[in-house]
């Protein structure tokens, strides 16, 4: 639907209730010596509520930039982001962001890192504590409440970051290569865990990843971006049945999807 609308160059006033996020013709260039560095070019897509979208693309193609624009942390040079019917021009409360590195505050314990978003909203007391404890349990870190980040492994730190992004019940969760720094085994475990969390929290997810199989395993839809400037070269629905697990990686269907994505990336390089 959004394609038609953006061709006619109008956006719906009252968005379809199931469409939580619309990105239309997003371009971004950074000023530099010779006329500006174009990082994103005409990126458009829309996202249904509770959809899981994965974005894959080569390093430096503007994935982080795109996520920051969706989060309202950066303003696009051209185009608009509509979130829950409103144009995004600054950060929104209903969005949770997980950064490429865990990005924890080293002077706060696990539980204080996780409750930070609520603390900033002026909430405190037993309700915050219960919520924090529940989330710590959800991400499997019980008994690490009082631990400082320096004593956490990479995977544990990333789980804290995910819990922190979930605590204010966001409608949209943006994840920037959340498992990028982890070893393959931990990565698989974390992906499975994220799937479980997504099922439990009923949240819409946009996740950037380098791993094609991770994307297929998790996503309802995959966007492939070209090398810089990033353009959408493939918008692929993944209709594998849920619940999914790692054993599916050996099925024919999975392999077909993987080779289509690989081809889309290779064609551009």
């Amino acid at each position, binding site marked *: 639907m959004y394609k038609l609308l953006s061709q006619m160059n109008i956006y719906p006033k009252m968005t379809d209730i199931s469409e939580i996020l619309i990105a239309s013709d997003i371009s971004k260039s950074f000023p530099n010596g010779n006329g500006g560095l174009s990082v994103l070019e005409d990126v458009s897509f829309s996202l249904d509520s509770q959809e899981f979208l994965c974005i894959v693309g080569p390093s430096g193609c503007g994935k982080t930039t795109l996520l920051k624009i969706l989060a309202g942390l950066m303003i696009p040079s051209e185009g608009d982001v509509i979130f829950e019917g409103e144009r995004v021009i600054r950060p929104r409360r209903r969005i949770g962001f997980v*950064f490429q590195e865990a990005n924890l*505050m080293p*002077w706060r314990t696990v539980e204080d890192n996780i409750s*930070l978003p609520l603390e*900033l909203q002026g909430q405190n007391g037993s309700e915050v504590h219960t919520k924090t404890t529940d989330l710590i349990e959800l991400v499997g870190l019980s008994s690490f409440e009082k631990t400082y980040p*320096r004593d956490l492994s990479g995977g544990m730190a990333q789980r804290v970051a995910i819990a922190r992004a979930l605590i204010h019940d966001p409608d949209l969760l943006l994840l920037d290569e959340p498992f990028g720094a982890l070893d393959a085994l931990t990565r698989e475990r974390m992906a499975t865990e994220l799937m479980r969390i997504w099922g439990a929290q009923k949240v819409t997810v946009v996740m950037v990843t380098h791993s094609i199989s991770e994307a297929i395993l998790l996503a309802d839809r995959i966007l492939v971006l070209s090398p810089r400037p990033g353009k959408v070269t493939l918008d692929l629905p993944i209709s594998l049945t849920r619940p999914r697990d790692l054993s599916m990686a050996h099925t024919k269907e999975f392999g077909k999807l993987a080779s289509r994505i690989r081809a889309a990336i290779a064609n551009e390089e």
Partner: protein
Amino acid sequence: MSTARKNLSSFAATLFGSRSRVIYLISVPFTLFAIFLLWEGITRYTAVPEFILPSPGSVWNRFISSIEDGSLPKHTITTFTEVLGGLVLGIFVAANLGYVLAKSETAERVLAPYIVASQSIPVVAIAPLLIIWFGSGQISKILISALIVFFPVLVNTIVAVRSVPEDLRDLMRSLRATSIQIFTKLELPAAMPVLLGGLKIGATLSVIGAVVGEFVAADEGLGFLINLSRGMYDTAMVFVTVFTLVAMALSLYTIVALVELKVLAWRKDPSES
């Protein structure tokens, strides 16, 4: 390791860096003892006169008598208030200005040349000026002390605020933190390690600043007392005063180090556990 010993050694680590803490625990009492023995030996077995090098015993006696006649406490309190005043003033101005400079590149570009240039003027050289302008009372000493504290705290504040990770700023922005929240919950704690580093340097420098001021012109304070005793060939009293100054600088340093130990518990040394 028992908790008490662990605390002590991590305290020593904060004071002198982690590697050297074992060496420190053994060597400090040992070398101190050796120095005293040597000192005692020289005064006992050579013909060095008392007014050149008084014996440890006579320094101790002078210490007791200067406490009894009230002169040492009086001058110590004078210098200590100047030091505290200089420290508080210097830190306050430097930290605030440093914050502004760190946040605004324009402000830094305009002011940086003057700040750097001001550092090439030795404080000893401006001390007489300040005394001409503000009199020979405590105010001029507080200003001299503040001046000498100012630069290291300023530089450390700028470095500290600039070193706050950009991603954490983005995190705070994405959570719609107010600028006050960004200051209290991000910038201040993130800057704390570097800031406390600046305070440690400032704490010892503030003592130097006050004494320099007192050397130039004063009728009270430990700097004045050194001058006075020297003039009367009361070398034992000079020693007593110098030791008092060392104790003062060390105590201030230790207070900052203790605060650091408490505030930076999250940064505890990995080699410890």
